[in-house]
């Protein structure tokens, strides 16, 4: 049977939903300057630190957030590499739309 086209998106990989949620928590794709995985954390640099929502990141299921100005570290556990790749993919896909 064909899946209902209008069903709410159930991501095939949970990580993709999480990647999306982290991008949003960091203030959206336009706000992310750099993202780099480091074993258990994502080291990110954002344009505007005030757009970062710690509560949104926590709801995305991250272990913790550490910020110093525009440098935001998102602690995600050992899946950091995979998650960073998913985020990069989503950022690239969004850029293509412009």
């Amino acid at each position: 049977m064909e899946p209902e086209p209008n069903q709410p998106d159930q991501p095939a990989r949970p990580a993709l939903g999480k990647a999306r949620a982290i991008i949003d928590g960091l203030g959206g794709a336009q706000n992310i300057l750099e993202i780099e995985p480091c074993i258990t954390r994502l080291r990110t640099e954002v344009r505007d630190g005030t757009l970062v929502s710690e509560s949104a990141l926590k709801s995305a299921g991250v272990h913790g957030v550490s910020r110093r100005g525009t440098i935001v570290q998102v602690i995600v556990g050992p899946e950091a590499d995979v998650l960073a790749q998913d985020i990069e993919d989503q950022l690239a896909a969004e850029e293509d739309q412009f």
Partner: protein
Amino acid sequence: MALVVGSPVSGTVVGLSGVSDPVFAAAMVGPGTAVDPVRAPGHVCAPVAGVLRKLKPHAFIVVTDDGHGVLVHLGIDTIRLDGAGFRLIATEGDWVAAGEPVVAWDPAEVATRGFSPICPVIALDATDDVLSDHSKHGPVEAGEPLFSWN
């Protein structure tokens, strides 16, 4: 049976509160402890037996057969060194015995480059209450027990 996590380096156990990185100090990555290594060239050893799930010059994760992951981080913010001063002995994906050398380095050189060589040893996806002895401080030899994971 409790998993005994051994010290990856010889030095002084200082606890996570002795780590300058707030992420480790607040146990955001997980509970555990930290060892301030002796300032001499040496090996960083596997804290437990298992598979080297991740291996970077400045950090690695060993996952035991029953799924306990232990992170060893060689110094603080040392990703910035981009591998300089570290030499990989093992390969990612290898099975290593507890105490087997994984990386060669010189903590004195790390310190000279302006980084803290303190090594956090973290029980991944664990809570503080399942560890014991992780609040002990004092001298330790590589391979000696750091804490137990119940």
